[in-house]
Structure formats: C-alpha cells, structure tokens
C-alpha cells in the first residue's frame, strides 16, 4: 500500500476507530494507543488482506483483538457471566439529545465490555449484526442479545445521568428563589 493510500485510509477511519477504542478502553490515552497500534499493524500486515474492501472491518476487528490481548495481560476486569447479567427493562427512554457527547460516551463505557464492543460497532459505524458477528467472532444470536440487553442497560444509565443532572439543577433554582424571596 502506498503512502497516499495509507493516508487516505487513516483519514477515513482513524476517528471512528478511536471512538470505538474509547468505548472499550478506560482512558483516552489507551484508546489513542489502540488506534495507533491498529494502524501500525495494518502497515505491516495489511498486505495480506486480499479483499481491500474489507479494510474497515479488518481495522475494527484488529483493534478489538488488540484490546482483548491487553486485557488478558492486565486482568483488570472480573469475568462477567453475561447470561446472568441483569436486563433493565425500562419503559422510559432518556432524552439523549439533551445530553452532551461526553455523558453518552461515559454511560457507554460503564457497560460491561462485551456490550460496549457490540453497541459501539452498531452505533458508530452502523455495522450490521452480521458484520459485528464476523468481527467479534460471535454468533448472530449473541450479537442480537447483546444489542438488546446492552441498549437496555445504556438507557438505564442515561436515565440515571438525566436524574443526576436534574438534581444538580433543582437546588440551584431553589437557592435563587430563596435569594430573590
């Protein structure tokens, strides 16, 4: 791959890849590191990919694998039995438009890692459930299950964020009224 082609690939994919990394990693620095590492692996191994139309999927898959490899070394997260993870059946949807990006990202990052990976691929690049299944090497049913339950957990967390934000606002208004009164 020529330097020009590489630059074009970077321009197209580095931001979504970073955001995917950010949803998985615990810090912006780690996400940036994962993104760079993914592109460096592309430089050394990308030639082996015969179907260049799959470069995007290759990058996301590679970043995810790199993340998992790092996690295996660090063992920072306890094993989560996903089948037993509780599903939050919330009847109310949070007003996401009222929240800023950082809040949404933070809520996403609070989810268990398997949910984060599936949801981020779904939201960020709007990968189909089949593509996500291929990238993460999990069955389609598992993708759907994680999307369903992951979204429910995300709604729950965003609602909590809304409530927290609302609590912060109300006392201030009361204080103002008290001062005025």
């Amino acid at each position, binding site marked *: 791959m020529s330097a020009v082609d590489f630059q074009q690939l970077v321009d197209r994919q*580095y931001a*979504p890849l970073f955001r995917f990394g950010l949803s998985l990693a615990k810090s912006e620095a780690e996400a940036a590191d994962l*993104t760079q590492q993914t592109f*460096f692996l592309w*430089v050394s191994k990308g030639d082996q990919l015969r179907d260049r139309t799959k470069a995007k999927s290759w990058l996301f898959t590679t970043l995810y694998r790199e993340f998992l490899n790092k996690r295996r070394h660090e063992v920072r997260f306890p094993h989560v039995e996903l089948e037993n993870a509780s599903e939050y059946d919330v009847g109310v949807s949070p007003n996401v438009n009222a929240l800023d990006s950082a809040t949404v990202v933070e809520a996403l990052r609070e989810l268990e890692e398997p949910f984060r990976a599936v949801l981020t691929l779904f939201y*960020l690049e709007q990968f*189909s459930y089949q593509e996500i299944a291929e990238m993460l090497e999990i069955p389609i049913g598992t*993708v759907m299950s994680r999307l369903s339950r992951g979204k429910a957990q995300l709604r729950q967390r965003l609602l909590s964020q809304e409530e927290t934000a609302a609590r912060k606002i109300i006392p201030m208004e009361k204080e103002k009224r008290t001062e005025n009164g």
Partner: protein
Amino acid sequence: MDNHEAKFILSAYRPGGQDAGDPRFSDALEQARRDPMLEQWFRESVAFDAAVAEKLSATAVPADLRENILAGGKVSRPSRWTKPFVRWAIAAAFVLVAIVGSLVLREAARPRLAAWQTNALGVISSVINGKSKFDFQAHSATELVSWLAANHAPVAQEIPQRLVGLQSLGCKTFSWNGTPVSVICFMREDGGLVHLVAMSPSRQTRAGTTHDPQIVTQGAWATATWQAGDAAYMVALEGSREQLRSYLL
C-alpha cells in the same frame, strides 16, 4: 412472534434504515405495524439509537492522533526485505545456493585421477582402438616383465595375484613429462581387458598416491592406484569398482 421476541430482533435494526430489506427483520417489522404499542416502542428505539449514534460520532478525537498515526506508519513500514514475497525469494535463493554449493563441493571433493593416470588411460585407449600398437606382445606376464626390464622400462615389483593368473596380451611403454611409464594388458575372464600401469619414481608418484589402493572412477574407467617403494602403480579396466576390486585381491 410475541412482542418480546420482536423487540429482541428489532434491537439489531439500524437507525439508518439499511436493514429494511433484510428478511430477518420482516416478521418483527410486520408485528410492529400491527401492534401500536410495539410500533411506539420501535419508533422510540430508533430515535434513541439515532441520537446515541450522533452523540458518539461527535466525540472529540485527540488533535495529534492523525499525525501520530501517519508518522508511526512510516517507521512501521516493513523494509522490502521483510515483505513475504521477498522473504520467500531470499529463502529460495539460499536453498538454491546451498544445493549448487553442495554439488560443487561434492564434485571438488571427489577423488580425481592424476594427470599421468589420465595420460596412461589415453595411451591404453589408443592401443585398444588400434590407433597404436603394443611394443611387445606375449601371452605370459613373465615374458612381458622381462622385456620391460630389459628395455629399462618401469616394472611392477609385485604383480597382483589375480593378474598373474590372467592371459597377457602385450605391453607398451611411453614417457610422461620425461618419466618412463609402462603398461601391461591382460585378458579378463569375461572377455574384457585389465591393465597394469607402472611409473618410475618421480615427484608425481610421491605426490598424491598412497600405499593402500585408492579407487577412482572416471567415465567408463575404474582405476586403483597405489605406491610401492618410490614407484606408482595403477590397475585400470573399463567396468565397475566391484569388477576392479576383484583383481586387487
């Protein structure tokens, strides 16, 4: 399909509408069209997904990330020596060189006839082919030895026992680089010929010959050369090593 199952499937429906034609969603979408409650849930779900997608896409990316990737990409680029094809080509070249090298070394290490031996085989061939004649012909080796000794030609001090029993044909003398050489030809039992070559003491006889017979094949010839005293001797025949060995016993 109940609503719970429909919600499960529709959770994978992308907010951009790319999945409208996917048959895996058709039943759930139909269910949503029939059930107002499910339709309401689906509409809110798609709106929620679209809003989350938009927020995530707006996440700021570190300002220097792109430049760092491009800079790192340059130094990560494998040299042309490490590209798979080049690696294979280099490996193949090494294998080829090793094979050719081993053949060359094997050929170089292969024992060869000394120049005087090659010359002697040439003289013998010329006699066999009728291009030259024996100097003296007799069916007795003893007679031939006597004739050679009388003509101051080199003579084997001891003739191998198997040759002594054979009928001789004749002998010939020649000079190689000023050194006298003689040949006695014997008739083998199988109709072929076997020849005893003797060369007077010289630098050539002292160099490259041993006391034990050294067997060397060259073309159709099998030869055994050894040194006794200062003289060098060679038994030669057109045949195999095994045939030759049988005359050295």
